């Protein structure tokens, strides 16, 4: 079924529910669905869990903390080593108003991949002997130890690609892929912000970064430039 085309990011996210788990693509400024994030902010949905590489690094995800829409973040980078600048999320985390599950980046992507690929988990050496292993199963196979990490999925994914075609095939630009292609596989409802929508066939097949089968909704938006100033 072709992806549904929406005229505004607000309409595209309108039926996300309170309490939903939302996968948010992007890495700092690259491939980040800023228009969809701001639409989710305007929707006023609350009690959300965001799964994202980072929050509060010049990204707009931190905007969801202005009115305390995020209960929880699952991510890799949320608290800065220096206290010179803090995000809204960090302030709320320290006040006990928002929870943080910190996950190593390579583990986060593989948990999402497992969630999207019908796998029951991932065995990795990352995190063995650290706080990340607390409460998790360690398996010994052929004399080697592995940490068992469980799959992760979202109720919805908010993603960014450069272009979509009318079927929902996605093409990425430069380092804009990052988490987007894997997150596209791992949510019940996949909503993608793009800079341009072309007819089917307008993206050369070998340049399709995410096949249309994963994509439910596309919306064309003027990209919002964000930047991490350190």
């Amino acid at each position: 079924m072709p992806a549904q085309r929406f005229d505004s990011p607000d309409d595209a996210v309108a039926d996300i529910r309170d309490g939903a788990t939302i996968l948010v693509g992007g890495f700092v400024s690259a491939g980040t669905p800023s228009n969809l994030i701001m639409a989710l902010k305007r929707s006023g949905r609350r009690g959300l869990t965001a799964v994202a590489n980072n929050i509060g690094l010049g990204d707009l995800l931190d905007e969801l903390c202005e009115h305390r829409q995020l209960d929880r973040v699952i991510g890799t980078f949320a608290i800065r080593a220096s206290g010179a600048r803090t995000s809204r999320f960090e302030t709320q985390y320290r006040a006990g108003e928002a929870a943080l599950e910190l996950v190593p980046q390579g583990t986060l992507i593989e948990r999402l991949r497992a969630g999207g690929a019908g796998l029951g988990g991932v065995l990795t050496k990352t995190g063995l002997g650290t706080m990340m292993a607390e409460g998790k199963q360690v398996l010994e196979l052929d004399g080697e130890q592995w940490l068992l990490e469980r799959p992760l999925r979202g109720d919805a994914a908010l993603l960014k690609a450069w272009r979509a075609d009318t079927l929902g095939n996605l093409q990425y630009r430069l380092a804009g892929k990052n988490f987007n292609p894997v997150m596209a596989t791992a949510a019940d409802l996949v909503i993608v912000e793009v800079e341009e929508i072309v007819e089917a066939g307008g993206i050369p097949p070998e340049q399709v970064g995410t096949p249309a089968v994963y994509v439910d909704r596309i919306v064309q938006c003027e990209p919002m430039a964000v930047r991490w100033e350190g």
Partner: protein
Amino acid sequence: MVAEPPAGLSRELIAMRAARELEPGSVVNLGIGLPTLVAGFVEPSDGILFQAENGILGYAGVSESDFDSDLINAGGQPVDLVPGASFFDTAESFAMIRGGHIDAAVLGGLQVSARGDLANWYVPARGGGSVGGAMDLAVGARKLIVAMAHVTRDGEPRIVESCDYPLTAERCVDVIISDLAVIDVRVDGLVLRETAPGISAEQVAQWTAAPLLIPDVVPEMAL
């Protein structure tokens, strides 16, 4: 009265020394902060390919040109590309990292232990932490170089018998490059390889809170 640690290398000179540790033609990941500076100290003729875990193989250091939000390294900084660069998604990036395809990583450090444990993602006094790709790099890179100040701002040695900060990974560090010294982590312990200009082996030992093997001859770093 607390003694002051001696003045050693600047951050730039630590990065320059770390760059010399990289093999020509190797694939290298640089951590956020001081390690990022290393890219500025390699020559194109070295043929080193820098990998950024957000999905670039072959970036050429921080770019002075116009900012493109889709062309950044893992520290969010704009970068240029070298001929032959490629882009990929995060799953592929960490397949490179965990799968043993990265020859060396240069990471920052908070503490390194006598047996090469690294702590670099969680400052207990601040809590919360930010791990990024550090744990995967510490486990997966074939050679791990830690570039850091030898001593904290409060005068506490960062090289310790055993880390009291939460670990990034156990037994992962191969070389420490600090403002005072180059130290190899070997099975028989920490071995002083070089001292910074004007720094004595005794001074390095004094500011190292773990046993340090000092060979008869310890050359000064050539910078």
